[in-house]
């Protein structure tokens, strides 16, 4: 009799364990699909909400028109697009070479405690809120650009403008690109370095011809991810670009980017349905372009990995 009791107790415990197993697997499958569902929901919502403005104005017309005047039913994105391209190109042009060289220093030159200290400091900085970079930009970079940089190159600037934003964005995106590049440089096997040095190459020749090529796919995708970061940056441009709806003539001019268009107009113009729809369209454009960057990074990584492998 005792044994039957234990057996039934055992089997009820097993039942409970199996029930828990089944229930938890439903939950976990649901959680796994959540990522896909969330993405789908975001895209669907944004597409559906931006349809009204696309129905009234063709996409091509909005992208090529420079006139942004929601009250008069004019939705030209061109100034914001030009501003975004300016900011992205300038800050990547400043940030990429420095990030690459600094990553080479950390991965190949620095040793021991210095290396640990520097790389953990740089990782730490990836977590500093961008609003703080914006604030420091207001305190330091705005007077620097307005009083020194612009007069030095013979331009006029009030301090706020595309160059200012680009400088601050370069500062933000550099640590991000450094961490990713260092990761792919450090993943390389030491045999590569040894055999290159062994056939008589200098350290720099080894880095330039062997290591940068072998880590190329990773570094390339780090740069593309950096592009995506700068492209979608909102807070720093909104604080430092100075807000101007015309197409900027020089990089020292004030301007706007696609995200600042959303920030500046969303609050006040929520009541005009078509404006709301136009701004949601801007959000959708941001999402699609960043998605293309990410997708490109993945594709390039796969392709180059096959071509540049050792």
């Amino acid at each position, binding site marked *: 009799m005792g044994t039957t009791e234990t057996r039934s107790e055992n089997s009820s415990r097993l039942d409970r364990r199996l029930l828990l197993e089944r229930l938890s697997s439903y939950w976990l499958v649901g959680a796994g699909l959540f990522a896909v569902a969330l993405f789908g929901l975001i895209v669907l919502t944004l597409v559906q909400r931006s349809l009204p403005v696309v129905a009234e104005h063709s996409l091509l017309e909005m992208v090529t028109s420079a006139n942004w005047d929601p009250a008069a039913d004019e939705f030209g994105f061109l100034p914001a697009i030009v501003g975004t391209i300016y900011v992205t190109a300038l800050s990547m042009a400043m940030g990429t070479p420095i990030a690459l060289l600094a990553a080479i220093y950390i991965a190949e030159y620095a040793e021991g405690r210095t290396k640990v200290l*520097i790389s953990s400091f740089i990782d730490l900085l990836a977590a500093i809120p961008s609003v703080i970079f914006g*604030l420091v930009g207001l305190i*330091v970079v705005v007077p620097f650009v307005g009083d020194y940089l612009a007069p030095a190159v013979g331009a006029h600037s009030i301090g706020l403008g595309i160059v200012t934003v680009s400088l601050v964005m370069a500062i933000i995106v550099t640590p991000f690109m450094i961490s990713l590049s260092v990761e792919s440089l450090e993943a390389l096997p030491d045999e590569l370095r040894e055999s290159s040095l062994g056939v008589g190459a200098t350290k720099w020749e080894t880095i330039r011809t062997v290591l940068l090529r072998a880590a190329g796919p990773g570094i390339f995708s780090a740069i593309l991810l950096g592009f995506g970061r700068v492209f979608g940056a909102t807070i720093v441009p909104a604080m430092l670009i100075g807000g101007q709806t015309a197409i900027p003539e020089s990089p020292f001019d004030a301007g706007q980017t696609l995200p600042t268009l959303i920030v500046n107009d969303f609050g006040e113009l929520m009541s005009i349905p078509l404006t709301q729809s136009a701004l949601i369209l801007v959000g959708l454009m941001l999402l699609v372009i960043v998605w293309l960057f990410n997708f490109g990074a993945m594709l390039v990584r796969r392709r180059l990995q096959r071509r540049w492998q050792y």
Partner: protein
Amino acid sequence: MDRYTEQRLFGLLARASAALVLAVLALVVGVTLYRGGRVFVTDPAVALTPPGSRYMLDGGGGFFHAVLGSIYIVVPATVVASILAISTAIYLQSDYSSERTSDVINMFLNVLWGTPPIVYGVFVLTLIIAAGAQTSLIFGTVAIAIFQYPIMTRYADEALRSAPDTVREASYGLGATRFETARMTVRAALPGVIAGIIMGFARGIGDAATVLFTAGRSTQMPGGPFDSATTLPILIFEQASSFNAEVRSHAYAASFVLIVAVLGLILVSKLLAGRFARFAPGGRHS
């Protein structure tokens, strides 16, 4: 230029670049600590005083509403996001999904990870408009949770991946179910998982673009979950270029509080990770 000169030149350039990056970043942290610290140290009560009635105009009172708003918005968001993130990360391990499925899901997670926060803000605002609701604390929480989810999932996934396989094998060998095994794996990966949660918390508390349109930018103490609220980053964003020096100085003090909180959290996560490592099965026994 012969190859040895080239080597010296580029070695020097690499060193100089690293020094430049470190110097600029030290400048950013230094300026924030100095300018904010000067305001904060002379009057620390400013962080714990409710705002006056004309706060945005004369800076009367303090920014306790933003401190509380940040906590009320980001703590629940972190709880929700970390539960979802850990579940997704468990699903991505080989026990529950095929390699193909987890590849596809990882692709979507990467896209979400790279999505600009402003897009999440716009998305949640669209939901608010569709629901006929008003911007409020609870929607700020939703927006932040969506923003944190892919970040935390990436950390948790990495941590679970690096958990020793012996834990999983031993657990299955003893006849444990997948769920029981997953619990052991999470325990083995606990330091990494916790570090990821704290990292997500730090990112969430520092982000402004997601909550700018969703939490409601109020200048009063937060009431219930359906009242509008504000957070520290929104406060800094709105007051940093104010014409009133007093209002501006509150933005500096708020940035001091924010940077100390973020850096402190990351430090704590590093320390915790070290401590937890001793209790994890298959971890270091020191």
